[in-house]
C-alpha cells in the first residue's frame, strides 16, 4: 500500500475556522452566527476581520437557526456555529421547517461531533446527527476527514445554493488531504485502490481506516479505501464500482450504527448489488467521559475494529 504523506496535525474545527476566515475575505455575502462558542468553533478570525458580519446569538440555538433562515431573504449566506448536538437535536424542528422545507441557503456548521468531544460526556457527544440531517429533504450532509478537507468543504458549501450540514470535530488528527485538493460535493475520494475489500469511511474514521489498511496490507490484503466525505447526496457510482470489484464492504464512522453512513451504503447495496457489509459504528449506546482515543477504543470505532471488520467481511464472501 502506498504511504500517505502527513502534512501535520490539526483539528478539523480549525479547518472550518480557516475556511470561514477565507470566505470572509472573498465572499461579502457570507455572514456568521454563533451561539456563545466562538472560540470552540474557531470563528475568532472571521469575527476579528468582519465584525459587522458576525452575529453573537447567545445561548439560544433555536433563535439562531430561524434568524439564519430569515437572513437568507435579502441575499446573505448564513453560517451557523455551535456544537453538533446543539446544531441538530436541539433545533431539529427549526431546521426542518425554516431551513430544509423552506429551502433556505443556510450552512449549519457543527463542531465537537461524536465521541471524540471527549471528557464532557454523553450529554454533548451526539451520535445521531448524521441520521437526523440526512433524513431531511433538500439537505446536503458533509463529514470531512481532516483539517485541509474541512477548510476546502467550508469554502465549497458557500458556492452551493441550498441547506448544508457540515460536521466536524475537536481532536487533533493527522492531515493527509493535500492543501490544494479539489473538494467536490458528492464526489467520493478513492484514497487507495484494492481488490479484496472496500472500506468506506467518513470523518475521523478515515484516518483510522488508513491505519487499518496498512495493517491489512501487511497481512497481504488489498484494500480499496474510499473517503465518503459527502453522506448526502451519496456517490452511488463510487460505491458500486468498488464493491462490484471487491465483493465486500466495511463502513466506518463516528456515529450511531442506526441511520449513519453505513445505513446509506447498505441501502445502495440492497437495491443494486448484494455484498457482505460490516459496520464500524457505535451500537445503540450513549457515550461517556474519557479521552477521545480511549472512547474510540471502548466503543469499537478504532483502527483494530476496522481491521477486524474487514477480515470478517472478507470471510463472508
Amino acid at each position, binding site marked *: 500500500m502506498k504511504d500517505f504523506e502527513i502534512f501535520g496535525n490539526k483539528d478539523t474545527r480549525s479547518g472550518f475556522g480557516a475556511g470561514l476566515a477565507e470566505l470572509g475575505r472573498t465572499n461579502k455575502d457570507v455572514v456568521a452566527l454563533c451561539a456563545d462558542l466562538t472560540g470552540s468553533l474557531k470563528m475568532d478570525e472571521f469575527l476579528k476581520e468582519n465584525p459587522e458580519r458576525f452575529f453573537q446569538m447567545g445561548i439560544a440555538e*433555536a433563535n439562531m437557526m430561524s434568524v439564519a433562515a430569515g437572513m437568507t431573504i435579502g441575499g446573505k449566506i448564513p453560517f451557523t456555529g455551535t456544537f453538533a448536538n446543539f446544531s441538530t437535536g436541539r433545533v431539529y424542528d427549526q431546521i426542518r421547517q*425554516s431551513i430544509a422545507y423552506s429551502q433556505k441557503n443556510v450552512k449549519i456548521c457543527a463542531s465537537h461531533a461524536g465521541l471524540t468531544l471527549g471528557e464532557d460526556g454523553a450529554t454533548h457527544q451526539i451520535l445521531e446527527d448524521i441520521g437526523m440531517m440526512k433524513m431531511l429533504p433538500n439537505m446536503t450532509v458533509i463529514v470531512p476527514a481532516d483539517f485541509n478537507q474541512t477548510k476546502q468543504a467550508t469554502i465549497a458549501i458557500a458556492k452551493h445554493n441550498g441547506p448544508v450540514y457540515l460536521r466536524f470535530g475537536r481532536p487533533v488528527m493527522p492531515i493527509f488531504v493535500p492543501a490544494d485538493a479539489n473538494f467536490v460535493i458528492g464526489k467520493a475520494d478513492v484514497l487507495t485502490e484494492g481488490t479484496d475489500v472496500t472500506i468506506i469511511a467518513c470523518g475521523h474514521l478515515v484516518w483510522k481506516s488508513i491505519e487499518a489498511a496498512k495493517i491489512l496490507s501487511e497481512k497481504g490484503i488489498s484494500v480499496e479505501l474510499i473517503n465518503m466525505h459527502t453522506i448526502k447526496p451519496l456517490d452511488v457510482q463510487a460505491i458500486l464500482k468498488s464493491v462490484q470489484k471487491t465483493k465486500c464492504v466495511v463502513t466506518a464512522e463516528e456515529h450511531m450504527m442506526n441511520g449513519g453512513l453505513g445505513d446509506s451504503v447498505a441501502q445502495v447495496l440492497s437495491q443494486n448489488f448484494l455484498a457482505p457489509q460490516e459496520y464500524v459504528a457505535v451500537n445503540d449506546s450513549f457515550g461517556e467521559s474519557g479521552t477521545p482515543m480511549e472512547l474510540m477504543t471502548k466503543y469499537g470505532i478504532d483502527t483494530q475494529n476496522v481491521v477486524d471488520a474487514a477480515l470478517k467481511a472478507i470471510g463472508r464472501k
Partner: protein
Amino acid sequence: MLKSVSNRSMERVELERIASQIRRDIVRMVAGVNSGHPGGSLGCADFLTFLYFDVMKHNPKNFTMDGIGEDLFFLSNGHISPVWYSVLARSGYFSVADLGTFRKLSSKLQGHPSTDKKLPGIRMASGSLGQGLSVAIGAAQVKKMNKDASFVFCLHGDGELQEGQIWEAAMYAAANNVDNLIATIDYNGRQIDGDVEDVLSLGNLNDKWQAFGWHVLEMDGHNFMDMNNVMQKAQSLCGNGKPVVIIMKTEMGQGVDFMVGSHKWHGVAPNPEQLANALSQLEETLGDY
C-alpha cells in the same frame, strides 16, 4: 382588481368592503375542504386587509424572494393561512381562482404556508409555532445591512407566545437594536384547548414585552381608524433603537355571529348549513372566487 398600495389613502369603508370579501373567502375555503382554521383567520381579516391594502409598500405583480426595497410580512401563526391566502390573492399576488384549491392535492395553497410550491407572496414556511419572530428578525437585520429602509412586519398568535423561542427572539431583537421590525400579537385570548388564561396564562403581556426591551402599543384589531393611528405611531417609533410590538385585541371568529368569541371554531370547518348562514352575514363585495 383593486390597487394594492395607496399608503393610508384608502377610505375606511373601502377597507371594510375588502375585509368582508376576505371573510367570505375564508369560510368558503375552509368549508370547501371541510378542514382549516376559520376562527383566527376571521379575527385577523381586518388587520391583514389594513396591512396589505393600506400600509405595506410591496409589489404583488413582481414577487421576489429577496423583496429588496419592499416591506416584508411573515405569518408566524401559519394555521390562519386562509386569511393570508385570500389577502394575497385579492392584493394581486396570484389568481383568486386559486383559492378554490386550498388544502387540495398538488395545490400551492398548502394547509400551512410553504415556499416549496412557489406560491407568490410567501417567503417562509410556518405552522410549527414560535419560529416567525426569529425569521423576521433575521430578515430585518439583513435589510439594515443592505441599507434598505423598508419595514418588516410579522404576526403571531397569543397562544403562540407560550413557545420559548419567542422569548429568545424577543431578547435578541432588543439587545441588537432591531428597530425596523413591527411585530403584532393577535390577542384574542383563545387557543385550541380553551381560553389562553386557562390553558397557560401569559400574565401581564404588556409588562413582559416592555421588560424585554420593546416598545409596546395596544390596538383594536377591528377598528380601522384605531389601526391607522397605532400603526402610524408604530412606524414613527422605528429607527429609535428598539423593536416595536403591537398587542392587537381581536375576537376569534369576528364577523360571523355563531363563531365569534369562541375557541370552538379555532380549527373546525362549518357544514353547508352553517356556511350558508355565515355567508348571509358577509356581503359579497368583490365577487366570490
